[in-house]
């Protein structure tokens, strides 16, 4: 059995530059459509400083997929991928932080177009924002909601509420 530490080492010396599709498969398992929404662009943002580590991360994902299911991540069916991603994010290993970071960043591409100005992304039909039915901004790129309230009391207040609106 290969230890997690040596797995991490193996992945970090993996050849650079060749994509197995593991990162894309991972992103599209976190949320289907994340790759199309820009997940790889987010992962490669210069300000994150992750670009050089990505081939190693991809190799790490494939190594775990091969150990777990006998094939690289991209070759697994959706159910197998989902089960593996769930396992990786729950694992207690040193490499878990890598998967958590990848999950957060891939999801951020889909859920909020983290590589784009949100107003521009919303207007240009970014697939993640469109899927969420994210509201459209005003012409100046700011959001305002003139209609926002039911306009009526919907519950009794706690009887001991103080004049400042706090609990006693």
């Amino acid at each position: 059995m290969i230890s997690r530490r040596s797995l991490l080492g193996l992945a970090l010396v993996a050849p650079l530059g060749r994509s197995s599709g593991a990162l894309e498969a991972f992103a599209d398992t976190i949320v289907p459509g994340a790759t199309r929404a820009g997940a790889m662009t987010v992962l490669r943002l210069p300000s994150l400083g992750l670009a050089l580590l990505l081939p190693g991360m991809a190799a790490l994902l494939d190594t775990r997929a091969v150990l777990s299911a006998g094939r690289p991540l991209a070759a697994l069916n959706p159910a197998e991928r989902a089960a593996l991603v769930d396992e990786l994010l729950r694992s207690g290993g040193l490499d878990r932080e890598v998967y958590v970071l990848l999950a957060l960043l891939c999801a951020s591409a889909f859920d909020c177009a983290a590589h784009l100005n949100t107003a521009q992304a919303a207007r240009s039909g970014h697939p993640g924002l469109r899927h969420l039915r994210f509201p459209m901004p005003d012409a100046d790129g700011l959001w305002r909601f003139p209609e926002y309230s039911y306009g009526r009391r919907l519950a009794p207040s706690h009887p001991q509420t103080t004049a400042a609106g706090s609990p006693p």
Partner: protein
Amino acid sequence: MTFEKADVVVVGSGFGGAVPAYYCAASGAKVVVLERGPRLTRFPHSLRLGEFTRAVDLVVGDGVAAVTGNCVGGSSVVYFGASLRAPSFVFERRCGTGRRVWPRAISRASLDPWYARVEQALPVEVPQWSQIAYSGGVFAAACSRAGRTCNPVPLAVDLKRCVNCNWMLAGCDFDAKRSMLLNYLPAAEAAGAEIRPLHEVQTLTRGDRYVVSYTVIDPDDYRKVVGIGAIEAKTVVLAAGAVATPPILQRSALDVPGAVGKYFSGNGDRVSIAVVDDKKLGMPYEGFAVGRPINTMSFDRLDPVQPEYERFSLQQIYFPAITNVLADTGFGDSARDARAKWASWLSVLAMTEDDNEGVFGPPAPSGSGLRLALSVVRSSLRYRPSSRTLRGWALADDEAKAILERGGLSTVKPWRDFAGSVTAHPLASCRIGDDPRTSALDDRHEVRGHPGLFVTDGSAVPTSLCVNPSLTIAALAERASRIIVESTGRPARDVPLPGKG
């Protein structure tokens, strides 16, 4: 060697720093405020990494992650404005020690006048029901159906100015949020205080006076240092925040109390996501993204007669879509399907009584930890919830289900814990108290054994509060400011509230 001199150096410009900076300056002291983050004047509505992240840090420990402000004004710039007094029972907590953990000198009654001052200074207002956003209305309606009460949450927001954009995490581009940028900080500057952004304090040393050493940070890459310096002062107020103050003290050549960096609390924060069925609700919703993030909350379980660790509040809250990954949606198609109903999501924050389980390990060489990228910092903080904390969270989960799942209205699930617990309310890592073994500060907020060195941020708050902490941090800072000013030999009593002189 000679250093620049000031009467008072304040480290940090959030609630804990802005308040004493104002009072010290207004009493005539030469005050320099050193703030790690930038000074921002515009607050774009954008979740692009590199935009909102200029003002917000995610400090990742082992088992807990804390969201904090990182700009002039600190967390007051990025917070959601909820301004509540902590319930009376909080001040009586024993935390398994058999005696009160808060100092004898402080109770809800003794803090009430200070709370009132902050409420007037910010100021705070209680929204009318006509000013409650849809999400707050849905939570209130669900509470009512389940036989509970539900209150509008007092807010440090100018409700006439507020456009209900729901971008409070990014700051406020409309000057509606009453952050420190609109009250204590401008008053401090008008009284002569100097605020220096992008100055990150690293160490304190002590001779006749304290020497505060700092690095100057590149505004475009917070990992780069572009300068160094030091200031000498007789009085130093540490208010760098509960995840940043302990590493500064640990790193300093001072014999600091053993309680520094222990007893960290995440305020018992626990977030759950409900997906609301409009048909069962009986009124239209689909308003998750609309309005202010915090509107209503239930005080029902803040019952003082219940046992400790079983009391909590439940608050309706909105977190921006960057946190969607924390919703327990499953992976693959189920994650996509859940997002198709995003407009019908409703999130609730339980604030419970935790057990102060957090402990900081040895400090990183600089800052509050190792800055990995943009606004992500790796901290030495370790947090493992105790069985009592876990029980409190389980009770809060049960109550959220009892309210929101009644009649099939929704399904509720807590956030995934793959990043540990997440808190927006880090507290108690350098706390006030009467027992030197468990409190680094005395009841005057002075670091034990170090006259003239005070801590006034969230780290000074001894326990979780069962409500959002900002008003309590500010009220404690108001109280401590009088002590700090008097310790500099100046009269404190005549200083008016900011903007009221």
